[in-house]
């Protein structure tokens, strides 16, 4: 499938390429059959958590009360820039996916939540919604199906935490983006207290394809439980950084050599963060042997996450990079839970001391211990999102932390 179109993104191009045929087909199906098709496809949430999309939809109670479908376009995980690419190159696929999702769960109202910095992208979505409305794909009695659906755009204003489902709902409600305690899950009590499904941009953009091709055909792409294609957004010193769509299960080595063109001249691969800054880092050796799918990555102790792949070369100091990440998570902690608020602060301070060579060897263990104590102890996964890089950086690159304490790091202490 092609999540990203190479050509212009207006509605004419989209329709010429078969756009909105999935919606027409969906209207000939019963809502529960659509959910069944998505379940069959085994599509898993592309935002990072990888939760099965069809299952998520099926949790919505089958009542006639107000329900919502929310598109999560808060894309803020460092290293992740794939949703922006879909908005630039194929925005109608997201809108079509949203309408189908709305029809499947019985929601007549959608919210498109987009991070505040994406001002240009918000304008693109505004235009896209306008075009879809003009063409009769949004509004009252869409394509004479009897189904009404409309979408409101809500802009965020600079808060990483709003990518978390319930923080995002709080933000739409015009509050501080502080994650809610679950249960109740959004499917039961979401936006304005109503049943709500929140899906990532890439997930929704994949839905039209599944409806056209059929869930079973979609599930034939990829490997095992990791079905379909996935977008990887690649940054760092490779020859060709950017966004790539590849079938899940592709070996990293193949992707790295064939798509990314390998490292830039003079750079040597040291480590890879495969799925956005919060997943555990892997070494170059580990990367070269692993396949890019949920199960393979989990078997070596990391995660597919958002597919925000950060390539790290030998010319980078791991202590320096971990400091950058710790500073970020400390800055973005919403402050609700003590382990996250305090832990992220302490971690930032300790790494800073190690970075400038003003620390003891025991501080490295302390760092690890604090991270361990943050894992799984908070309302949302932001604490884990810092703890995982800390523990993996320390475990796999401990020698670099030690060389900082003795001020022998050749990257940071050379005169």
């Amino acid at each position, binding site marked *: 499938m092609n999540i990203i179109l190479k050509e212009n993104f207006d509605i004419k191009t989209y329709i010429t390429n078969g756009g909105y045929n999935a919606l027409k087909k969906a209207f000939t199906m019963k809502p529960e059959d659509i959910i069944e098709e998505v379940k069959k496809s085994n599509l898993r949430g592309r935002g990072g958590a990888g939760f099965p999309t069809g299952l998520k939809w099926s949790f919505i109670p089958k009542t006639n009360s107000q329900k919502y479908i929310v598109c999560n376009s808060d*894309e803020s995980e460092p290293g992740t820039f794939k949703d922006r690419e879909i908005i630039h190159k194929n925005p109608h696929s997201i809108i079509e996916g949203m309408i189908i999702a709305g029809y499947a769960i019985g929601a007549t109202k959608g919210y498109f939540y987009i991070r505040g910095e994406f001002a240009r992208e918000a304008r693109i979505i505004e235009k896209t919604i306008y075009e879809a409305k003009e063409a009769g794909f949004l509004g009252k009695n869409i394509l004479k199906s009897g189904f009404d659906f409309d979408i409101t755009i809500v802009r965020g204003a600079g808060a*990483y935490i709003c990518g978390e489902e319930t923080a995002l709902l709080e933000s739409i409600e*015009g*509050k501080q983006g502080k994650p809610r305690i679950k249960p109740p899950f959004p499917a039961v009590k979401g936006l304005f207290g109503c049943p709500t499904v929140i899906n990532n941009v890439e997930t929704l953009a994949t839905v039209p394809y599944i409806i056209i091709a059929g869930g079973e055909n979609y599930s034939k792409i990829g490997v095992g439980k990791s079905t379909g294609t996935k977008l990887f957004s690649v940054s760092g010193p490779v020859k060709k*950084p950017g966004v790539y769509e590849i079938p899940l299960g592709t070996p990293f080595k193949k992707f790295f050599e064939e798509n990314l063109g390998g490292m830039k001249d003079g750079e040597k691969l040291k480590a890879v963060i495969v799925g956005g800054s919060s997943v555990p880092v892997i070494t170059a050796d580990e990367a070269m042997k692993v396949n890019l799918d949920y199960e393979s990555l989990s078997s070596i102790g990391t995660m597919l996450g958002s597919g925000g792949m950060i390539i790290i070369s030998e010319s980078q100091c791991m202590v320096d990079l971990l400091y950058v990440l710790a500073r970020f998570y400390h800055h*973005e902690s*919403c402050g609700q839970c003590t382990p996250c608020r305090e832990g992220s602060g302490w971690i930032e301070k300790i790494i800073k001391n190690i970075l400038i060579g003003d620390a003891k060897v025991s501080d490295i263990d302390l760092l690890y211990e604090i991270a361990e104590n943050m894992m799984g102890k908070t309302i949302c996964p932001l604490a884990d999102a810092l703890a995982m890089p800390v523990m993996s950086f320390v475990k796999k690159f401990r020698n670099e932390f030690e060389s900082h304490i003795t001020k022998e790091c050749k990257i940071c202490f050379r005169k």
Partner: protein
Amino acid sequence: MLGEDFKKNYKNIMEKFEKKESSIIALLHLIQKENGYILEEDIDELSKLIEIPYSRIKSVLTFYTMFNQKKVGKYHIQICRNISCHMAGSKKLENYIKEKLEIEEGEITKDGLFSYTTVECLGACGNAPVIMINETYYENVNEKKLDEIINNLRTKK
């Protein structure tokens, strides 16, 4: 003070939302777009105008980092300092901006045109380093490109 543009448009924006409170972030964006920043007096005025308590608006304003709570230059430069931009030399770029504009982080140039802050990931990592000036992204920025951008904005005024 809330500007003319705000007063002309705020009702239209509020109408788009199901509940009045939901519009707070959008209204703050509108104020900032016109004024460049949001001051105490603006929150007071907004609170009275839309009949939402001051504390409710302030809690939102202080949570979201995009809102400037003190004056910034006409062109506010935000330099991404997160991992991909960091690896691509964002620190060096920051130092270059400091020298070129003769300001520290959070300060405004004497002519009132420029100010800068560092920010977290802007979500365009493939083209690092990335900066944002007001609402516009500039990608794959280097010193030469930065010179051009700043000179263009200076002559535009």
